[in-house]
């Protein structure tokens, strides 16, 4: 299975499609902004399944620390078979985060490859269905703080590598004393 984070789950929910002034509104155009491709590839992380909690935790922390502030993280778990059904392949590309020290975690990063216009649409539809069936996951800010603290204490994170805004957030929220360069 693959973890794909979402920018914000609200816009993936069916109720948000009501804002489209069409009788045949299907999927909000805004959701596509959560699926930004690069070189026609989409970043995902591989896990054994929903029960692979430790891997998911490490991946979520890696994703969260690449942002500007500690905030909830939302993601879906995409079954590989659903990707194969629409002929989407994967390639290995270790995660580029300098914050996560554990290479095993970084090695879980993959790319969905050769994403074209139709496949991006199918993927968006599939994710919207997962969210609609309440299969999207939310890691609350308070949970995320615990996860970060746990991995930091285990020596798996180099928090000196996060950006300045995130350092401010970590100092503020976790009581750390990271040096902030002016």
């Amino acid at each position, binding site marked *: 299975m693959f973890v794909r984070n979402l920018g*914000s*789950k609200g*816009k993936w*929910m069916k*109720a948000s499609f009501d804002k489209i002034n069409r009788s045949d509104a299907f999927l909000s155009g805004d959701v596509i*902004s959560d699926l930004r491709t690069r070189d026609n590839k989409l970043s995902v992380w591989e896990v054994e399944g929903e029960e692979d909690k430790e891997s998911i935790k490490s991946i979520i922390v890696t994703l969260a620390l690449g942002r500007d502030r500690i905030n*909830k993280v939302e993601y879906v778990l995409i079954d590989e078979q659903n990707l194969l059904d629409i002929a989407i392949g994967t390639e290995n590309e270790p995660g580029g985060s300098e914050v996560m020290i554990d290479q095993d975690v970084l090695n879980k990063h993959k790319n969905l490859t050769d994403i074209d216009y139709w496949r991006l649409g199918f993927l968006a539809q599939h994710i919207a269905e997962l969210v609609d069936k*309440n299969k*999207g996951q939310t890691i609350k800010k308070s949970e995320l703080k615990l996860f970060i603290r746990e991995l930091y204490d285990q020596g798996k994170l180099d928090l000196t590598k996060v950006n300045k*805004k995130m350092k401010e957030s970590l100092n503020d929220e976790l009581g750390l004393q990271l040096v902030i360069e002016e």
Partner: protein
Amino acid sequence: MSNHTSTIIGTAQLVENTIFPRSAHSFNLSGTTLQFRQNISSDKLNNSTSTDDINARNLKFTHELHKREKGFISLLLHSYFEDGLSNEAIDWIDNVAKGNEYATALWLHSLFSQYQKDKQVIYRLLRILAFVKLPNTWRTFIVTVRGFLNDRDVEVQEAALMVFEEYRTIECANAIEETVFTSPWMKMYAEELALDIKQELITNVC
């Protein structure tokens, strides 16, 4: 103090006690370079702690913000909001709030009031509230945010929940519990959040 000044300051029930920073920020908004320090401050006003001067300073700052309102709304509507990520609109508000938090809060209140029916603006303003630290004025937004928690628009509701996830007071937890959420995901997230806040408050008391 002029009547005009006291009326405006009194409307938002804000009491200013900060001094405009000596190294004021300059920023661009819709092609206009804003040099707040030049536009707003003078040595006399900056150094004075008298109520009249503080109010005059707030009024001047608020006036400058109102002048940039159109540009800001345009920037706001063109900014992409993603959980945990900053953007130009957030950075802009963060900068002006560091210059004068009370005047900025007053102005934000006026934007909430003016644009209350424009969900695109409201959703984005709430996202900003959930991101920018307003250490002296955040409590003044609780009633406003509570109102938007009941909004039918899921994105507005989600953004309001995110603000309360930051504020984490008992009023926030109670308001979340009293709100009816139609979406199963939002309902679950809200229930967990309210419980989380209450547990945290109990732990802090103990």
